[in-house]
């Protein structure tokens, strides 16, 4: 971690549902350009934590800061303007929109010409500009379309040939790719990926891993939820382990994977590390 202000900083973030504390006083710092993974058994509170950071849910306590600024409980639409992009665990593409339109929605927060920052009558101007479409608006739209093609090209031949197809017609893996493409179109400062390889086969997983690795190399700050430990170990600068809403371990991949508490959380008590880690030789 760098010495400057962390890009994302969580202090004591807590969320309870009735009697259940889904997220329990989580502290977390994410430096500029870092990739931190959150792992933990199902129900550990990882996705709830994502929801708290991205404004889909409000914390009952604690503070979330982005680049030093408090963003606790900001609405998701506002956070998009701050450069926070996320993908969803179960996949949320816009089924009836084409691949192109799905990814263009990702760039929505960056629209300038068609969304003049005028108070009060801004929305009406937006309606007027959408109908009249002066050259500035057309140029912006064309530029974004080019950008979308460039983003889709990062997925090889997976999405480009299907650019005009509706998202509901895509395979599951391609829908996950569209989600990531949509997130990239936001030009995010912070990217949150919720199980980006869930349901993917080994080849597809390897491709996704390569892409995330590229994004990291380009300097993007990434918070990743992932169950595939092999991938987590290869990509992450640090790994945070959650169980029952609490952070039970944090550190470099190797430290964490040999932590007794982590093994217990995953496998239950009384199991030795030797029998637990079958992926060891691969690393």
């Amino acid at each position, binding site marked *: 971690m760098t010495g400057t202000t962390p890009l994302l900083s969580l202090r004591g973030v807590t969320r309870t549902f009735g009697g259940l504390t889904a997220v329990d006083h989580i502290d977390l710092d994410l430096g500029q350009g870092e990739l931190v993974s959150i792992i933990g058994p199902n129900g550990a509170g990882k996705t709830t934590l994502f929801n708290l950071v991205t*404004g889909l849910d409000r914390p009952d306590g604690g503070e979330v800061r982005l680049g030093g600024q408090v963003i606790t409980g900001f609405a998701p*639409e506002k956070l998009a303007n701050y450069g926070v992009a996320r993908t*969803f665990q179960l996949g949320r593409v816009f089924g009836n929109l084409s691949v192109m339109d799905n990814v263009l929605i990702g760039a929505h927060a960056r629209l300038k010409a068609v969304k003049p920052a005028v108070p009060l009558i801004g929305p009406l101007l937006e309606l007027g500009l959408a109908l009249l479409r002066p050259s500035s608006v057309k140029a912006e739209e064309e530029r974004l379309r080019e950008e979308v093609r460039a983003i889709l090209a990062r997925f090889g031949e997976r999405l480009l040939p299907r650019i005009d197809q509706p998202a509901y017609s895509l395979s599951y893996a391609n829908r996950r790719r569209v989600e990531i493409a949509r997130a990239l179109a936001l030009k995010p400062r912070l990217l949150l990926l919720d199980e980006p390889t869930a349901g993917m086969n080994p080849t597809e997983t390897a491709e996704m891993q390569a892409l995330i690795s590229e994004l990291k190399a380009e300097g993007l700050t990434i918070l990743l939820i992932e169950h595939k430990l092999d991938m987590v170990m290869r990509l992450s600068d640090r790994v945070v382990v959650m169980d029952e809403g609490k952070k039970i371990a944090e550190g470099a991949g190797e430290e964490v994977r040999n932590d007794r508490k982590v093994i217990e959380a995953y496998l239950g008590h009384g199991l030795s590390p030797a029998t637990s880690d079958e992926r060891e030789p691969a690393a």
Partner: protein
Amino acid sequence: MSSWLDYTINGLIVGNVYALVAVGLALIFGVSRLINFAQGSIYLVGAYVGWVAVVQLRTPLVVTVILVAAVAALVGLIIERFGLRPLQNSVRIAPLLATIGISFVLDQLVMLTFSPNPRALPSQLPDVRFQIGTGTIGPLDLLIAGVGITSALLLFVFLRYTKLGWAVRATAQDRDAAMQMGVDVNRVNQTVFGIAAALGGVSGMLVGMYYNQIDTAMSLQATLKGVVAEVVGGAGNVPGAVVGSMLLGLVESYGVAAFGTSYRNLFAFLLLIVVLVLRPNGLFASARQAPPEPLTGTFIAPSRPVRLPRWALAIAVGAFALLPLLPVSAYVLQTLINAWLLGMLALSLTLVAGTVGQVSLGHAALLAIGAYTSALLSLRLAVPVGIAIICGGLMSAALGTLLISPSFRLRGHYVSIATLAIGEIVSLVILNWESVTNGPIGLSGIPPLSLFGYELTSASSVYWFSFAVMVLLALLQARLLTSHLGRSFRAIRDDDVAARAYGLGLNRYKALAFIFGGFAAGVSGGIAAHLYSYINHETFNTQQSILALTVVILGGLGNVAGAILGSVALVGLPEAFRIAAEYRILIYGIVLLLLVRFRPQGLLGTI
């Protein structure tokens, strides 16, 4: 004060009646996450079965109650089996539309069988009043209270102590888990629809006896009141529905005491809007719910729209534009003028319901706002008709959007309820705001259509005018759909959670859609006002809202060309086949049902 106690008793008795409807709605919502818009129709059926039993068969009271419950339950079972079960794996909008269609079919069947004239439904009970403190209570009040309490007890015992009751509760909690544990969900649904229908039917009969009058307009009112009570108590919450009903009964009763009978419904709908805005999960829901489940792309039927080539559209527009030059009768032109006016409304609704996914059931209110604005401006301020119509459109856009804005945070069925209520509120305000709207007398002598000082007197000039306005609105809307707003609207419809995560504020974009759509509907209403020269609070009613919805589904949700094609088909075909007016709504209802079942994407496909 004796009257205060009387109003309280009256409120609780009426609340009891609402509870019978609301409990059924809550049960159905619990197991199938569906607001059954046909509940009021079953209530209507109950009232008329009661009338047949009492007046024609002269059955004793106990037999009447059992007969009504049995027939109503049978209707409920039929609705479940043939109307809703085939749609189980369908898109979310399908069962919602199906219950709306079923309700119209049932209402029309009752109306065709018994005629729309009100009938007296005697209560078969002695007409005495007992003094309680300072108020009085009659045997019918006691009967209603008795039926309400008995039903609640029976329901409680059923849900708590029988195996099927457990299955109902399990299904309500987690349908999938219940199925995995071997619960026959179809049987549960059937049971629930049967019980809900029996309660609804008895409620209709009791209300008929209470007011000693039944008519076919009862249905919509009952649905609205039941839904209000249910939503106030928290959708799917059975005890909540009872409390919500009592609260509704009391609010109405005290409201009537304070302001007069004509405001009764206004209080009911204001209560609904307040609850929806402040506590959308009902009064008894826990403060915050977990974030909703993803429902990606399942709201409307996925389909690839039929791409009509531009030249074909141009030819069609040209052909219709030249039609008045051919030797066609004024009757044909008049029919098509109606189609163009409906087309403008359908354009508006297809944007709101199809493109943004806000299934509005009160869209006729936008017509009314436009019509009254335009008519009043030209009548009172002598504004030229052309400008008045544009002002009507702008007023519909502004006021309509403002009125509908409380529902922007709602989803799915709740939007439909809220818009239905808002539509009723507009109609009630028009009825009661006599100093401006002339109340029930309506506005007459509205100046005829004119443009730049020239009166459009001939049928062909009116035809050209309305056709040109509709084509212009359609072109604008088509252009809107190809802009960033088009994809933004559709994104909100497909997944509002993901849309928000990418910076689409729901209020802003839903408002823009309603502003654009409100303008088209307002213009349509404005033209209609000058064309009819007389309007009142009933000119633009729920039937038109439903007709527009059928048109929109027929053409394909969100589909601009489809909206116009649907209007021509639904206005033109009944004329062509000379179908009598009273059968038309029945046919619209059946068309809606068939479409939902067999071609949910409509003729030209959803966009």
